[in-house]
């Protein structure tokens, strides 16, 4: 399950960055935004792809910093959604 999520996140992010393969812990903010709309497009992608709602409290940049961080965030949100 998690590998699947990771692959999806990696594929989505790779559209925005001129690198061949994003490594799990590559900091996408340090690599630089390609488009000013990137931040909310990323929020929208995560919500749409994984059926989550991202709100005010989730907006820690650390949740969005890398493929690995996003994967962990999605897993956390999905298990919280199941638990509640």
């Amino acid at each position: 399950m998690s590998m699947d999520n990771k692959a999806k996140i990696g594929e989505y992010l790779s559209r925005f960055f001129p690198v061949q393969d994003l490594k799990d812990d590559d900091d996408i903010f340090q690599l630089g935004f390609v488009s000013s709309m990137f931040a909310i497009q990323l929020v929208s992608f995560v919500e749409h792809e994984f059926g989550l709602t991202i709100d005010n409290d989730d907006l820690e940049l650390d949740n969005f910093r890398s493929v690995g961080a996003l994967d962990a965030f999605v897993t956390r949100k999905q298990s919280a959604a199941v638990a509640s």
Partner: protein
Amino acid sequence: MTSTLTAAQAQAQKEFRAFADRHIVPHADAYHRAQRTPPQIVELLAAEGLLGLPVAPQYGGGGCDAVTLGLLAGELGRACSSLRSLLTVHTMVAHAVARWGSRELKETWLPRLARGESIGALAVSEPGAGSDAAGVVTRLTPDGDSWLLDGHKTWTTYGESADVFLVLGRSPEGPTAVLVERATAGVRTELIEDLIGIRASMTADVHFEGCRIPAGQVLARPGLGLSHVVGTALDLGRYTVGWGCTGIVDACLEASVDYAGSRETFGTPIKDHQLVRQMISGMYTDARAARLLCLEAGRLRDEGDPGALAQTSMAKYFASTAATRAAADAVQIHGANGCSSAYPVQRYLGDSRVMEIIEGSSQIHQIGLAEYAFQERSLVRRRQAAATPRSEGR
């Protein structure tokens, strides 16, 4: 044209059209000349629930989908771009609060905004910062458990009459968005007159001098005011402006067809001259194309598709450029009358010029859309590379 609408959307459009024809179209030129929006028409829009249409029902709004909101913006845009601008900035503020506000902010503001009891306006631009909103210098200084706000915003649509402002400032953490009530001590507005377009829009300079803003009025968190809050608001603004521009094209088309059928030169109605027909054919096509792009943007927004951002940008870019083409041709078809205040087409001309400057100028969209084209292409290439067996690959 309504074939892609649901029955409920088509019905809503009919009602919006009838409302605009009855209450706005007959007065729009007078608003334009007076450079004021009478409070009564704003109250009527509020009473009809039109200012809270997209706000969630739990906060007293209409909970409408994006396509329905677009249809409303289109009908208002056909009637009066100033009032369409009111819908735009007001819904931008409500949308930003709904998306990134704390629970308290949502519970305090969304019901007021939904009822149109408080009108919202967006104060991002400054004398020194427009397209490059990251350049704002309005200061948010932490002071105990609140902030002090100091700065000068300009071009705030309905800034002269709005009750609450979504303000982009700069805090030590970076770009930060706060909600500021007009009633706050230190807020002062000044009407900007004699604009080329949306002349009834009560656009104003807004000054903030030592305004004390409670910490709870921050949207999202400090540092994310531009990338998330204003980004979200602008995305919706682009969407309703795009639709508003389809309304301008529709209005130009209607006026031009009527006029070309009645005015005669060289012994025939001017509609029989091929060069006049060329202009009308262009407008007719643009009206349809702009509407289809806006409908597609609305559909993607309703599906929560991340591609909605690019589609919205494309729809706004196309519709606003189509509106300036249509308005220029509508004035041409009306000849000297088109230059006068006896016909609405000169109003459309000024309004459409504004539409190519606000919510991302045409140049800003031209830069951004290319980026999406590159992204799409790179995705296709990656997928092809992944599907090609290594031995055959290069």
